[in-house]
């Protein structure tokens, strides 16, 4: 029957075979290398967000300073918020997902290795696009982009367009990654790795991925509506034609509040891994911690309007959202008590990761307490748009998410680098961080309650805000010193630190059962799991306690078929990047010419990818 004269093109570009050097990083589909790419990229983006923050703090160090103009200041706080949330914390979490999930569940890679590479390159394209918008004027409407500040009349520059389109690109990357991890965790668990034996970090990743899958389409729709308003004169947020600016707020926060848990749940997962190891105790109430995480994710959908208490939704809405917001503190509190229960009576070793995790508990608690204060809608009316809110968000996201991520960076450093860092310098970093963030962020509570509005580029003398603003700015330099210590410590030791043993912390989960760094195929033999904290149990059960490391022997691996490298994920991501630029600069040469070229590249990439076998016969 295959005789119809339809020519099927049989063009096959040879796929990369055993590439080396830089090229190997462009074509890699190894989850560990992608994890490292994510981590290093996101760390640089984190530093760029830090530079933006530093400029803002310098401007606010004293009254009526002129270091940056009001217009630049608006761009700074918008880009700082967007960068830290979408380009720093989310991809730093993604770095851990990538590197650790297959190791923790006993798999050789993720379910879709090429999709994983696609996620990274797409994320990189979106990140570059957003940061490059500083050339010519970045977005300046706040990270939540409230209508009508983003309308074409109010804001005709390209900054908003860059912000919209790059967030769409980042959304595609996040969604692809979330689909991948959902399938990986459901479907690639080693034999015996039942749901209630999953490491906590894997559990929190799973919950986070589900939140991503459900939350991102909402912001996608909101951004599409905004795009149509700006490009084609639609009426979604056009009040003159009956549109409602409050609709934007609803759509944004229906996404935005689950997003908060997308940021914090992986951090909670990291802390739940670190605390038991350095306390030499199992996690207290494992099932409760898992359940609390799931409840937080579920209830995260019922609280979005607490961002809108002063919009005027009415007493019923405000009351309901006050109650749900208060309720969500319950599962969070459960987690807190479980962590404290974990370290209670343990043989505590205060290594750097442990210090950061303990710091997380303390700082996150402070952020949680101010969070409960916002939850009371009447009280919130006093705090809305004051510095009290940045104080809260920095305690939960810097003191919370970033502290936990740093804990994870130190904890798994021996695993991903194969080297040991300097414990002394790590501790110096910790103390600089603890002092620096409290000096920086705690005074914001005072000026906030004293009525200092957020998002103002300067303030008059004699308002009583001078002292605490100067203190906050001074704190930034302590933080900078801390990060310099960290970069020096980790950078130097990654290259020529002492070689790390496979299991330096006497760990509990499977990633510590293989060599540091793990071989490309992770496990010589897929492990068979018999218990929660399987690796710990294995070590306890073995007679002489000298347990052979199962990975990295380099022999007997000839029959393990790893997925082969591929160009196409990079090509598809490139097509999206070109297309995204084409949408912003839609009037070059011919309307939407560049967008069309990007679309064609994407289509070629998608087709070639679909027709490319996972493995070519060698």
């Amino acid at each position, binding site marked *: 029957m295959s005789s119809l004269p339809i020519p099927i093109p049989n063009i096959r570009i040879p796929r990369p075979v055993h590439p080396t050097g830089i090229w190997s990083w462009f074509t890699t589909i190894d989850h560990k290398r992608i994890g490292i790419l994510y981590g290093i990229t996101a760390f640089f983006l984190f530093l760029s967000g830090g530079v933006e923050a530093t400029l803002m703090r310098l401007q606010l160090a004293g009254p009526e300073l002129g270091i940056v103009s009001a217009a630049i200041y608006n761009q700074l706080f918008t880009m700082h918020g967007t960068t830290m949330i979408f380009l720093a914390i989310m991809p730093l979490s993604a770095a851990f997902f990538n590197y650790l999930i297959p190791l923790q569940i006993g798999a050789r890679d993720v379910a879709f290795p090429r999709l994983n590479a696609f996620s990274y390159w797409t994320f990189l394209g979106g990140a570059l696009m957003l940061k490059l918008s500083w050339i010519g004027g970045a977005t300046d409407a706040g990270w939540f982009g409230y209508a009508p500040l983003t309308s074409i009349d109010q804001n005709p520059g390209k900054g908003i367009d860059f912000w919209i389109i790059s967030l769409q690109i980042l959304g595609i990357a996040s*969604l692809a990654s979330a689909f991948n991890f959902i399938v990986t965790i459901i479907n690639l668990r080693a034999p015996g790795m039942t749901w209630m034996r999953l490491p906590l970090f894997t559990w929190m990743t799973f919950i986070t991925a589900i939140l991503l899958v459900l939350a991102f389409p909402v912001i996608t729709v909101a951004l599409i509506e905004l795009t149509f308003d700006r490009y084609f004169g639609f009426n979604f947020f056009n009040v003159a034609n009956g549109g409602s600016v409050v609709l934007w707020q609803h759509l944004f926060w229906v996404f935005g509040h689950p997003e908060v848990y997308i940021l914090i749940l992986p951090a909670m997962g990291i802390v739940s891994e670190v605390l038991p190891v350095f306390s030499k105790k199992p996690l207290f109430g494992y099932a409760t911690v898992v359940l609390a995480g799931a409840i937080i994710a579920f209830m995260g959908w019922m609280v979005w309007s607490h961002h809108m208490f002063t919009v005027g939704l009415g007493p019923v809405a405000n009351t309901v959202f006050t109650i749900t917001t208060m309720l969500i503190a319950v599962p969070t509190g459960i987690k807190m008590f479980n962590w404290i229960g974990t370290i209670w009576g343990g043989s505590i070793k205060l290594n750097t990761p442990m210090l950061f995790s303990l710091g997380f508990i303390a700082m996150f608690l402070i952020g949680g307490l101010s969070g409960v204060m916002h939850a009371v809608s009447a009280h919130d009316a006093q705090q809305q748009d004051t510095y009290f809110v940045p104080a809260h968000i920095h305690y939960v996201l810097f003191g919370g998410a970033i502290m936990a991520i740093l804990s994870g960076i130190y904890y798994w450093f021996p695993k991903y680098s194969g080297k040991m860092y300097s414990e002394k310098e790590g501790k110096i970093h910790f103390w600089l961080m603890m002092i620096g963030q409290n000096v920086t962020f705690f005074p914001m509570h005072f000026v906030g309650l004293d009525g200092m509005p957020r998002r103002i580029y300067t303030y008059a003398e004699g308002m009583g805000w001078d002292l605490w603003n100067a203190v906050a700015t001074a704190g930034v330099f302590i933080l900078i010193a801390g990060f310099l210590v960290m970069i020096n410590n980790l950078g130097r030791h990654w290259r020529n630190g002492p070689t790390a043993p496979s299991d330096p912390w006497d760990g509990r989960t499977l990633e510590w059962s293989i060599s540091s760094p793990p071989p490309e195929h992770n496990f010589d033999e897929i492990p068979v799991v018999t218990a929660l904290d399987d690796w710990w149990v294995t070590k306890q059960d073995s007679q002489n306690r000298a347990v052979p490391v199962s990975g990295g022997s380099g022999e007997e691996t000839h029959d393990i078929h790893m997925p082969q490298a591929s160009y196409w994920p990079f090509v598809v991501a490139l097509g999206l990047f070109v297309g995204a630029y084409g949408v912003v600069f839609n009037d070059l040469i011919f309307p939407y010419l560049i967008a069309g070229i990007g679309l064609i590249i994407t289509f070629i990439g998608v087709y070639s990818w679909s027709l490319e*076998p996972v493995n070519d016969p060698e």
Partner: protein
Amino acid sequence: MATEVNNDTNHDDHEYTTTGLNHRKMLMWAFLGSDCMFFGALIATYLVYQGKSLVGPYPVDVFDIPVTSVSTFVLLMSSMSMVLAYAALTQNKISGFRIWMASTAIMGATFIGFQVYEFSSFSTFHVDIESCNEKIVKHGIFDEYEEELCANAKEDHVETHDGLQPQTNLFGTTFYTLTGFHGAHVTLGIIWILSLLFLSYKKGMITPERHLDVDLAALYWHFVDVVWIVIFTVIYLFGVFPFPGS
């Protein structure tokens, strides 16, 4: 439907999976869950703005339920055709597979054709005296806007309105965005189905052992149909025959 397929070609990894379910099928379901939220947000926007347009035309002015019913019927039949294509493939009847795939694509394209017709007729909608009288008889609905339009039409004996554009009012904005994105989904599905149809002429690409490739396209196609049922009910039917009191 089969839960696990022994894909002995190199297209699918046939390694151990925890649940025994195929990776790609699970990914498809996760994607559809995500897409539900996408359409959910669009439909929510439509409903929030329902009845909030400051000027006409309104749904009752432009919707032609019999016409859209026909295109809805065609789209639903295309789902059945998709089922038959899949069944033919699993029974190794490759010619049947091709016929039913082609018919699915044609019915999908017919639906898109109806949509193009609908969009163009809405955007050139105008009121004249006959339709004014007709509407009174048909729906018994005669609001101030229509009254004004009809009064003008009677006076001038000309078209009095330049149609429903996305920029005209909130109804145009939300209607074209929602149905336009649904149409884009259908178009993507047609491209997918045609790709599979063409691939079936290449040896070894579409075989009963590799029916998952078709299964995934079918899953997507049925989903897009189901979304249309919601849109047709909520937007079209409730738009013309509103609930009492709404």
